[in-house]
């Protein structure tokens, strides 16, 4: 007796129909790197998977006006290989390259990464940093939700039954903005992120920060940009001591969000280095 049935959708509309079919409890399947591990460990809560990995609409990477659109079924490899994303979303590209190993990157998708919503998901900090909005569709409605609001906690999202994450959209960053992502794991590949950090930034002609965004990974229950840290930097010359102060404020923001947990003694120190260094790379390129 198979544990679940399999059906493939060829368009988003077809996928939504299949997901809404009341005869089944259906689950979208893209890369499978999370779902197949899940069904190994636990009896599945679904009885059918709907394969969305080949839906052309979900594989787009394109610029539409002032926005970049990335389909939810775009894999880490496809994202990293994309000249458009290399140009417009360098922190996302770096994060994609930091995931797993080549085979995981060929299969895993950005949409799957966000919907699985692991606390340590590497796609989260860059998407949040870029103010990415997730487009969700159901048979009856379509809505947009910032990624930072879509993810509500560890393995919890605001996705409603029957809804499918179809696209990500983020504004093209202003000209001259550099991007960086740093991952800290216990080994150099196939590693769960202990900490992550995404940053974008730009200096004006006087060497002062006129654009900065910062989003951490693996430290917040629900991801967000660290606007307090950004405010500290805006309009200032990013000296080493200011970047160190930014690091400290990052640690404070983390503790404010999570309280002191068993890992805080380590994370509150290490995150300062990650913040300062990622900001430095985003602002100076080194």
């Amino acid at each position: 007796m198979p544990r679940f049935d399999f059906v493939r959708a060829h368009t988003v509309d077809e996928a939504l129909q299949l997901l809404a079919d009341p005869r089944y409890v259906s689950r979208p399947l893209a890369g499978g790197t999370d779902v197949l591990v899940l069904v190994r460990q636990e009896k599945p809560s679904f009885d059918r998977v709907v394969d969305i990995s080949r839906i052309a609409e979900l594989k787009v990477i394109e610029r539409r006006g002032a926005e970049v659109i990335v389909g939810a079924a775009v894999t880490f490899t496809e994202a990293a290989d994309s000249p458009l994303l290399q140009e417009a979303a360098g922190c996302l590209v770096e994060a994609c390259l930091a995931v797993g190993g080549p085979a995981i990157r060929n299969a895993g998708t950005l949409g799957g990464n966000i919907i699985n919503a692991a606390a340590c998901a590497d796609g989260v900090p860059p998407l949040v940093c870029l103010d990415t909005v997730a487009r969700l569709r159901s048979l009856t409605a379509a809505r947009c939700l910032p990624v930072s609001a879509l993810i509500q906690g560890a393995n919890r999202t605001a996705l409603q039954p029957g809804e499918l994450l179809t696209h990500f959209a983020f504004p093209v960053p202003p000209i001259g903005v550099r991007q960086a992502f740093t991952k800290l794991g216990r080994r150099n590949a196939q590693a769960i992120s202990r900490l992550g950090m995404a940053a974008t930034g730009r200096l004006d002609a006087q060497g002062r920060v006129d654009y900065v965004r910062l989003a951490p990974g693996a430290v917040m229950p629900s991801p967000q940009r660290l606007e307090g840290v950004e405010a500290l930097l805006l309009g200032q010359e990013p000296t080493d001591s200011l970047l160190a102060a930014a690091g400290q404020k990052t640690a404070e923001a983390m503790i404010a969000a999570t309280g002191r947990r068993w890992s805080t003694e380590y994370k509150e120190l290490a995150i300062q280095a990650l913040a300062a260094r990622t900001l430095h790379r985003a602002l100076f390129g080194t």
Partner: protein
Amino acid sequence: MQIEFRLNGQPAAVEAPPDITLLDLLRDRLHLTGTKEGCSVGECGACSVLIDGQLYNSCLVLAPQVEGREVITIEGITAPDGGPNDLQENFIVHGAVQCGFCIPGMVLAGEALLRRKPNPTRAEIRAGLAGNLCRCTGYQHIVDAIEATARQRLSVPADALIS
């Protein structure tokens, strides 16, 4: 359900339950035991295969997902005469094989890498192997074998290839 795809250069049609992995399909249904099961959670790469020329962990691919695709397993990596191809021969010559359990996956990873990067540095080779664990060799001879193959392939036009 019926799953139709191409396997090692030949058409394949298999009747299988929808909820098994490609790894199970290959090993249990098709009795192709060259692809190995090491961890079943996509960490070790012993189950590596090529799908449409790209490297995948077959333990994380649902069998129906290869419908219409081109799958290559270690059984499909040979020289035209059926013997070891240049990469496999280099694995032997450079001492890359010890217990051998990771080796099919390593060969596939090496082929996948050389398709994407025909002239890789040793660091790039290591990055290409980052999802394939080995407990015996410390990776060094494996890197040597792939590096030697890359050099040879660059100097000899498109001869020593997968059948």
